[in-house]
């Protein structure tokens, strides 16, 4: 199979908003799409740099998100601060392995997958690797898709804190950890958005 010819070679640009193919020459005068007037870039400027920055921010935020307690429960039998990993272990030990698995997927597996996937994409793009270009594009789409599922944890804590308010008998309050976790999800999604998947296919000059 012969290599497809790329837009750079053909002197064409694509409007990522409305999909109009614009000759690059016309962009020299006006960098907007003639049809929808949204900005057209040959490649998203500083895409890898921004992606990397968001990724690093996500990884950094992920540390306090796991170390700090996400929820504080108090009741007749005492008070407890629970972290994400602690909660997973507790569910696992008490026999609710399915819930434990779900939370583990949402709050540990997914963020890690995202970190690794985005990191991999950045690395390969930087080296202008031609390895598994198609798979990497699929990987990028998957990362984009699973991003918001990590918000599951945040929703669990928000619901529990809202519903479990029985004064002395039992009460749950969110703790700082969940804010960090929420930030991790947002930042990694921004990271994925900053990445320009077209870079996967660019050939070294």
């Amino acid at each position: 199979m012969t290599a497809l010819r790329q837009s750079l070679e053909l002197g064409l640009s694509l409007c990522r908003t409305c999909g109009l193919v614009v000759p690059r020459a016309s962009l020299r005068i006006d960098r907007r799409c003639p049809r929808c007037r949204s900005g057209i870039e040959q490649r998203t400027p500083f895409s890898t740099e921004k992606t990397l920055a968001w990724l690093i921010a996500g990884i950094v935020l992920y540390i306090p998100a796991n170390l700090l307690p996400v929820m504080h429960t108090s009741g007749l039998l005492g008070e407890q601060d629970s972290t994400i990993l602690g909660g997973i272990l507790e569910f696992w030990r008490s026999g609710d392995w399915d819930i434990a698995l779900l939370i583990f997927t949402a709050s540990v597996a997914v963020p890690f997958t995202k970190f690794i996937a985005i990191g991999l994409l950045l690395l390969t793009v930087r080296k202008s690797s031609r390895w598994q270009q198609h798979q990497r594009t699929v990987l990028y789409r998957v990362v984009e898709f699973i991003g918001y599922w990590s918000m599951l944890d945040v929703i669990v804590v928000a619901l529990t804190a809202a519903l479990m308010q029985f004064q002395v008998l039992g009460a749950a309050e969110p703790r700082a950890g969940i804010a960090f976790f929420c930030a991790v999800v947002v930042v990694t999604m921004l990271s994925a958005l900053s990445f320009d998947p077209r870079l996967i296919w660019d050939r070294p000059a």
Partner: protein
Amino acid sequence: MSAAPTPPSEEELPAPVVQNRRWVPRLVWVVPIAAAVIGMSLLVRNWANQGPRITISFLSGEGVQVGKTLVKYRDVAVGRVSAVGLSADHQTVVVSADLSKDVASLLRTDTQFWIVRPRVGVGSVSGLDTLLSGVYIGMKTGAATSRERQFVGLENPPALPHGPHGRELQLHATRAGSLAIGAPVYFRQFQVGRVIDENLLPDGSTRVTVFVDAPYDGFVKSVTRFWNASGIDVKLDAGGLKVQTESLAAVLVGGLAFDDGPTEAVPAAAGTPGEFTLYKNETDAMAAPDGNPHYVRMRFAQALRGLEVGAPVEFVGVNIGSVIAVDLGYERQDKSFPVNVTAKLYPRRMGLAYSTLAAQGKTESDETLAAFVGTLVNRGLRAQPRSTNLLMGTLYIALDFMPASPRVPFDASIRPLELPTVNGTFQELEASVGQLVKKVNNLPLEKIAADLHTDLTDLHETLSEIHSRMLPSAEDTLSALHSTLDSADRSLDVASPLQRGVTETLSETRSTLQAVRELADYLDRHPDALLRGRRPQKMPERPAASSSDAKP
């Protein structure tokens, strides 16, 4: 920008220089930096707020749960157990706990930790709240200045977990009696403190630590005497039965009591303040201090059955010591077996007598006592075994003046001092009692008894005779008497013929007597009638008088 009507070829025109403002996209790096700063600050703050981690070793970790069991100081949670494990030698349970930062200064070398569990004892019930909440680790800070992170936990909670105000005192005793930790301390039957610790010292004596609560610790002075008010002190001795107790609680859990001792007395154990001697009982405690004992030996030439170790030695009736040994000696010269009695004397118990008599030797030494005793012996002081109680046959040693006894030499240089003795009087008493018994034995008791028996037999016979013979006849007599009385009763009845006959006879007799009286009257008035006979009636006023029965 102006639109060019005919675009020239790309090669002709210089490419426009597109200048990106490169710093704007770079702003995105603020995000990870900010995240890192926030995260780091949180971690730093967390680390800075983290208190010390301590390890406490216990013999048992019963009920201790990782992450749940709290460490409480004055009932306020100051930490939480973070790990429970075994020590390297598997002999103890090592509990790690994270404490909050503000109690770090309380972790001193002598800070105490113990596991609070529900406890029900004779004296108190404690820790019931742990039934629901689970155990917790109690903490009591110490007074030491050096810090410590590793502790050995107490197996029992300290008697004073919250360090109230008051005074801690050390009492020394040869034995603690029936004391328990927490046992009450009484001052005039008022509980003012409790026992907080008991130790067996290396020398075998006991050290009891007591705590006297704040308002009452002023009662503890240098002259204060402590004594054991534990349980019931029952003493049966020559003086009789003595039962002594402080209170019912003290009977159950033991207890101590204190009070002011004799004020003129020298403070006992004049050592460090807060150290006192614990006496066996109130009598011992309140007695004037005995001072050091002095030993004397006495040699008796008679058997001393009933003289036991501990028997009192009395000087003119005052107990000044006790017998500590009774040994059998052997005298080669006359091949006899004297009894050697060793006794310890407390000369101070002689009180003023000793202090005035031994005034010349102020120092309380054996020499002083020897000189003092020498004076007394020259005046006739002798040791004599005497009987305390005839029934029980117990003996005591009496030191008494017997001026009549022959003078004996007294060697003041022998140690222990040797006291001259005289034999006891109880053997003479025994002899006279023997004579009495002999006399009683010689009485013709059997003959007396036989005579008495004969007399009694005679008496019995007489009585039986009376019973068999006289009683039946008496019965007959009585029945005859009864029938006689009965017939008499019948005869005297109004309806009986005899009665009627008597009545008739009486009325006849009355008529007859009336006729005779009329005749007498007639003859009185007509004496001639005796000769002439009766004349016709001239007196109508009495016609009835002699109508028919006035016939002569």
